[in-house]
């Protein structure tokens, strides 16, 4: 199994990171180089940079659109999103040398529970009629990563994860101390590769739909 560990732990991280970066930049460039379309804003909208930032923060932090207009999925979606935010924050803290295991576990539990809850919501009539298999798959992927992080103890191994990540980033990759972490590393790789090409890129797309379309373009 040595070669498999080598593949997942040493080779794939670079492939995944490269694909993620290239895919992500490609998308961003593609959208930002779009010709200036006809004005198509919706009133009222925030005008100053400060107001816009405020609106964005409120939307990202509270999912206000869902809260106001689609209560049915507000809580499950909020739970899942907060779980994801927490896991991402945990990763950054780990890199900084602050492995707050509790944050990772809490995030993992929230994202896992939220994605499952969303999954069941999707089976209800109103959402089923517009759901394609890929939406279920996206939720499963979120579930897999968060549950995987809990089961493999990934969130509790902050120091090992840090060492491993630093190895990757400093171009002297070493396999993680505990081989079981490779599972989670593999899920994360899949996620990274998939991110720019799937619908989960919406966090970036949203910047353009709001700033370049819905909120008008500085006039």
């Amino acid at each position: 199994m040595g070669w498999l560990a080598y593949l997942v732990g040493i080779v794939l991280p670079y492939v995944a990171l490269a694909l993620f970066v290239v895919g992500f930049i490609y998308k961003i460039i593609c959208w930002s180089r779009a010709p200036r379309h006809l004005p198509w804003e919706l009133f009222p909208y925030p005008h100053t940079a400060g107001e816009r930032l405020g609106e964005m923060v409120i939307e990202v932090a509270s999912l206000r659109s869902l809260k106001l207009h689609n209560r049915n999925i507000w809580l499950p979606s909020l739970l899942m999103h907060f779980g994801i935010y927490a896991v991402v924050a945990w990763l950054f803290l780990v890199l900084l040398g602050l492995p707050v295991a509790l944050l990772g576990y809490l995030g993992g539990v929230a994202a896992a529970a939220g994605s499952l809850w969303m999954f069941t919501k999707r089976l209800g009539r109103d959402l089923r009629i517009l759901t394609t298999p890929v939406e279920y798959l996206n939720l499963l992927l979120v579930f897999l990563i968060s549950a995987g992080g809990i089961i493999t103890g990934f969130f509790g191994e902050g120091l090992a994860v840090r060492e491993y990540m630093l190895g990757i980033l400093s171009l002297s990759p070493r396999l993680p101390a505990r081989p079981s972490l490779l599972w989670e590393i593999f899920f994360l790789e899949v996620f990274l590769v998939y991110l720019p090409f799937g619908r989960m890129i919406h966090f970036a797309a949203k910047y353009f739909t709001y700033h370049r379309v819905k909120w008008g373009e500085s006039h």
Partner: protein
Amino acid sequence: MRRVLDEYRAISDEVLKPHEKRVPRFLEAMKKSLDSRANWTFWLPYVLSLDTCMKCGTCAEVCPVYLSSGRREIYHPAVRADALRKIYRRYFTLAGRLFPWLVGGEELTEEKLDALVEGSYRCTVCRRCAYVCPVAIDNGLLIREARKILDAIDIAPDELREKGTRKQLEMGNATGTPTPAFMDIVEFLAEEIQDTRGYKIEIPVDKRGAEYLVMHNAGDYLAFAETVMGAAEIFHAAGVDWTLNSPATGINDVVNYGVFFSDVEFEKVLRAQVKTCIDLKIRTLVVGECGHAFEAFKYLMMRLIPEEERPFEVKSILELIDQWIREGRIKVDPRKNPEPVTYHDACKLGRLGGLYEEPRRILKACCMDFREMQPNREMSYCCGGGSGFAIMTKGDFLKFRMETYGKIKARQVEETGAGIVALACSNCKGQFREIINYYKLPVRFAGISELVANALVL
């Protein structure tokens, strides 16, 4: 009537030509629509809306058609727009070409094309859904893009194209009113004013170099003459240098149905209108009570026609009246309109145009009892006359308008207890005329100009 989507037909088989092979042409036109240069006018919002819908269903919770139909699947905003997304996935994305079943790509057939055509005319592009979508995805815009692709393969409602933009370009107005008849109408309206108000006013026509050219929706002269008369009285009272124009000067109809279904037609009409304004050497074009014309001149024109090629200002008649009342240029007495009045925010003036306060200030100044309709402003429900629907009645289409949008609107009006619904858009007037009739509401509708004129103190 052959059934293709539901029990209505917006587009007849004559236009639809179901026996011809249209799919390859459709795909060709769609390919072009995805080219950022060929379709620069809407490319970015178009591809963002094709690609990043999260299928959360929030749009459906605010869509008047979906809600009022008892949540029919075919009227779900995202499902309706998916008709286009499925084609996009299947033919124009890698994932969809490889795994269509996974990402919801679907082969386009002639039958599905028929359904797509009808589906594209079950949404007024009111954009209430886009306003609430967490990702700001615009299913209304996708409907408009679908209409554009269909127009490129010659599938468009006669009301909007043959008898709409084409007729307007040929005759100067979409009503087909020639100059002598137009002059007669204006003369008749001046007499009407004299009869009802007891004083004579001059209504200038085709005056060159005027400060204000007031261009109405030409349909108003025939169907909503009170609005035209009201505007004349207001401009007279304001004592400004103004004029109407006849078809002899070019285009004398502010509508532009291209807004609803075709950028090509849109641009042709717009350029003809701009040319008319330049020829008349006017300083300000005043857009009469017409929602989509305001959108066209105030926003859509901005990047289509460079500033130096349009040496005149554009104002909505609402902006002017509001300004004049505040400046004291015209005086109004609210006691002359004692009945309770409510206001319907036209989508194109409100959500798309940003004119929320102007009509309210005007109405509060001119009426004793102004009442808000709930919900209002950015969450106003489309009346159902938008995107061309107001002039589409064939194939039981009127019933569709009444049983969906109309149903919600009728209830809203009733809840206010108002006796008058004030409207600032010709298409809304066309739709409300039918709603009041269909639901036997004890109300009448009135143009803003009509109410202002009625309150004028000379």
